C-alpha cells in the first residue's frame, strides 16, 4: 500500500517491524524520509548501520537517526561515532515514557512536558519544516 497508494497531502508515518526486513521491500519513490531509531548500545548501533547502509544505497530519501534512551553526552557520542555523518536527534531516557507504557496510555497525553516528549516534538517539527 505504501508503494502504490496516492496519499496526496496526507502525512503518512509508518512504524515498521524491527530489523531491516520491511525496508528491503520498500522502493525509493514511496518514502521521503527514513528515521532510524537506535539505542546507545553496540548491538543496536550494528543494526542501525545496516539500516543506514540500505537506505543510503537505495536512495530512500532524507535520513535521520534518533538516538533513543540516551543518558548523557557519552551515549550520543557512541551513536555518532558508530554512524558518522548522520543527522542525529537525541531522545533522553525518561521514566515518564516507561510509566505511560505500563499504564497503556500515550506519553503525549500523560506527560506532555517530559524531556523525551519534548525531544520528540522537536523531531516532529524538524520533519514538517523541511
Amino acid at each position: 500500500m505504501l508503494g502504490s497508494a496516492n496519499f496526496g497531502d496526507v502525512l503518512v508515518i509508518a512504524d515498521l517491524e524491527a530489523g531491516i526486513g520491511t525496508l528491503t521491500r520498500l522502493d525509493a519513490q514511496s518514502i521521503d524520509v527514513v528515521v532510524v531509531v537506535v539505542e546507545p548500545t553496540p548491538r543496536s548501533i550494528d543494526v542501525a548501520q545496516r539500516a543506514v547502509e540500505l537506505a543510503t544505497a537505495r536512495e530512500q530519501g532524507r535520513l535521520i537517526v534518533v538516538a533513543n534512551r540516551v543518558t548523557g553526552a557519552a551515549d550520543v557520542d557512541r551513536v555518532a561515532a558508530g554512524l558518522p555523518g548522520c543527522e542525529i536527534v537525541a531522545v533522553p531516557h525518561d521514566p515518564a515514557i516507561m510509566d505511560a507504557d505500563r499504564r497503556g496510555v500515550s506519553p503525549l497525553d500523560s506527560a506532555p512536558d517530559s524531556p523525551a516528549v519534548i525531544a520528540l516534538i522537536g523531531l516532529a517539527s524538524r520533519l514538517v519544516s523541511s
Partner: protein
Amino acid sequence: MRIAFVGKGGAGKSTIVGTFARLLARTGRDVVAVDSDPMPGLSFALGLPVIERPIPDDAVVEKAEGTEGPRYRLRPGLDATAALQAYGALGADGVRLLSFGKTRGDWGDIIRGQHAWSQILDELPHDRFDLIGDLPGGTRQPMTGWSKYADVIAIVVEPTAKSFATARRLSSLRDSKWAYHHVVAVANRISEPADTVTVAQRSGLRVVGAMPFDEGVASADRLGMAPLDGAPDGPFVAAVAALVEYCVARFDGSLKSQNPIKEAVA
C-alpha cells in the same frame, strides 16, 4: 532441555537467552544457543563478535533438478553434530552459538545457511545437547514454526499493554501443530512484585521467572558487555539463575523424543 524464548521486540529475549545459556553451561552441560534473528543481538551476550556467515556455502549441496525435498541439504557425510561442531561458534562458558548468519538486505546471502541451520536442528540427537533459542521479536517466526525444535516456549513479557497483547497472541502456540509441551511466561523489567501478578493475569500464562529491571544490565550493554560480565552480582543475573534452576527441575530431558505420538504430529 529445549526452550525457545519469544516475545515482543525489545522485551529482553537475547539478554535472557545469553545469560540463561551461560549459566546452564556452567553446570557442566553441552549448551547450544540457537539464534534465528537475521539481525545481530545474541552474540554480544555470549562474548562473541557479530558473525556474518557462520555456515559456509559449501556446507550444503543443492538438490538435483526434478527431485523432492528442501532446496539445500547438508553435504553428504556431514551430520548434524559434526556440522554444529564445525560451524557453531564457541562462546563464553563454552556455549555454542548456532546461527545462520546476518543480513545487510540481500536475503539470498543467508538462504543456504538457513537450510543447514534447520537441518542441524531437525537432526541433532535429543539427549546430548540443551537447546536455548532466541527468536526475533513478534509473532512471525514463532507462528511459522521457527521454534519447532523446542519442547518449551517461554514468552518474555514486560508489564506493558503492548507486551501483553503480543503475549496473548503468542500463547496460541499452545494449540499449534508443533506440539509444545509447555507454553509459559517469563516476566522481564519488573519493578515490583505486583508486576509479576499483572503479567500472569494479563497474559493468561503461568509465570516461571521474573527478572527485575536492572540498571547494571542497561549500563553494561552500552559498553557491549553481557550481564554476566558487567553486572554479575545484580538482581537480573540472580533471577535468571533462579529460572535456570526451575527449568532444570521442571523441563529437563527430551520431551519430544519421549512422546512418539506428539513427535509424529510435529
